[in-house]
């Protein structure tokens, strides 16, 4: 199912969360809580046994693609791609969110760094990914946020397999952490609607490598329909326990040493479970 054992993935998740906390604490800005909610989802994708890429040749034609539509989660993409060997992690820590850095506040497309798409404004990246999937025979995975699905043009993607063309090589990963910037998010019957519009719909624990890995295997087995995977997650997962799953922390990095320590304590507590 994965290229390496789940115990190894778990260690990687811990290291990446630690890097995320450090990165955003040091830089004083960035979307930590969204990034934390996506750690297992992103790792599961790039470490799935079928998922091909080459960190030394980011523009490799035969690569499989992972698009990030909710662009504010780019710190996670940056940390994972350092782990994968696209660039040294120091490059990220030294230049994150600085002028002309490849590690902008929202992703700027750079195949060399493994960044498939420029993003930021919500509801756009998922259409880029879907169009891309129609134009390639490689797998195209796309991470989208739940808040993002309040945008009409995100919702209209659900019709695409039905009234445009099915892209069976496409998998949408919905980060359903139920929190947006200023309010809770309830997408109601979105999974049922997606099924009606010809998606293979799967619902999983978005922090379980086992569940995610199995869902991804099922996604690529369906050669008729694209897949819509509702990943139930916790915003701020593995960070400060008192903040996880709570409103008011979107785009807010740890403030002061006390909050920083709370994040690290949450990280350690999550590790022991």
């Amino acid at each position, binding site marked *: 199912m994965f290229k390496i054992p789940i115990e190894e993935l778990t260690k990687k998740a811990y290291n990446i969360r630690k890097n995320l906390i450090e990165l955003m604490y040091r830089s004083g800005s960035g979307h930590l809580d969204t990034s934390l909610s996506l750690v297992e989802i992103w790792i599961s994708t790039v470490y799935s046994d079928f998922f091909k890429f080459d960190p030394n040749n980011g523009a490799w034609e035969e690569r499989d693609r992972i698009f990030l539509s909710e662009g504010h989660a780019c710190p996670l993409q940056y940390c994972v791609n350092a782990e994968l060997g696209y660039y040294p992690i120091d490059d990220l820590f030294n230049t994150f969110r600085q002028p002309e850095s490849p590690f902008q506040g929202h992703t*700027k*497309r750079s195949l060399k760094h493994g960044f*498939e*798409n*420029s*993003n*930021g*404004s919500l*509801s*756009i*990246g*998922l*259409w*880029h*990914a*879907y*169009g*891309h*999937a*129609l*134009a*390639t025979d490689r797998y195209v995975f796309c991470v989208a946020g739940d808040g993002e699905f309040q945008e009409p*043009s995100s919702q*209209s*993607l659900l*019709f*695409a397999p039905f*009234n*445009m*063309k099915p892209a069976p090589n496409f998998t949408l990963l919905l980060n359903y952490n139920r929190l947006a910037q200023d309010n809770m998010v309830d997408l109601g019957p979105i999974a049922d609607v997606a099924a009606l519009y010809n998606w293979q719909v799967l619902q999983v624990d978005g922090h379980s490598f086992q569940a995610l890995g199995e869902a991804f295997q099922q996604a690529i087995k369906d050669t008729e329909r694209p897949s819509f995977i509702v990943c139930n997650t916790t915003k701020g997962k593995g960070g400060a326990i008192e903040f996880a799953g709570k409103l008011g922390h979107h785009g807010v990095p740890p403030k002061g040493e006390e909050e920083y320590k709370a994040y690290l304590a949450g990280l350690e507590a999550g590790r022991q479970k």
Partner: protein
Amino acid sequence: METYGNESLREAFGKALIDAGKIWNNLVVLDAGTKNSTYSQKFQEVFPDRFYTPGINEPGMVGAATGMAMAGKRVVACDMSVFLHHAYAQIRAAARQGSDMHMIIAATHTGVAVGPDGGSAHDLTDLARMRLVAGFNVITPWDGRQIRSVLQVILEEKGLYYVRLNRPKVPLFLPEPAPFELGKAYKLSEGERVTIIAVGDKVYNALIASEELGKGFADVIGVSTLEPLDSDTIIASAKKTGKVITVEDHLYIGGLFEAVAGVLVQHHPTPMRRIALDRIFTTSGDPDELAEIYGVNTAAIVRMCKEFVG
């Protein structure tokens, strides 16, 4: 002036797309529910597997088109111009992917030339909107023959291109093959007393006006690339005549007038007048009737030249 019949810019574009589809195997065409108006339907008839539509969904169309371009396709996204307002965020996002991809947006139904569908359908701000998106070339072809040359050029070189077309049949007046070089403005007639600069099918009106004004009266410059604008040709003519009139079927804000004014005010301040629409919403009517009402026809150009030159 010799002409070779009439053809709408949108129909010429639709036909040229078929020829382009035979040359470029990776050319794909999208439309957002207007394929019989934009003539992209012709491409679909010949290449059904290379035509996509999400239905009446402009953000979806421009988004998917961008993704296809990112996958290495030559992409042409067609729509009636005014509906592309819906996809402005997606157009901006397309440009933010970088210019190492091949994407063309073809907008039909621009200006009051759209006619009886009325103010809701007259796109009078598209040039302004597209000039604001860094990375997009803004192309304003003059007749159906030039459209064939435009497509040949822009399908050859990667980049982001906006092509302004329109609805009614207009005269074919250029030789074949018609001239088109990206970023080049063309001096079409020589004169001493005033410079007339026009975009799109208004170039024909400018040339007819120049004929009426008599030999040696007006320098006529045809602009088929509004962005990037050929400053040198404009400045040289302004230095010679000392008076400049711009002609466009568009608001005076953000289009040709302000682009030319921006160049001249910096390099060679020159008195200017404009043939363009005021900041208004327009009415239904026949295209020629509307051009008369809003003062964007040949007679208006002649009148303004005479008043301006004195």
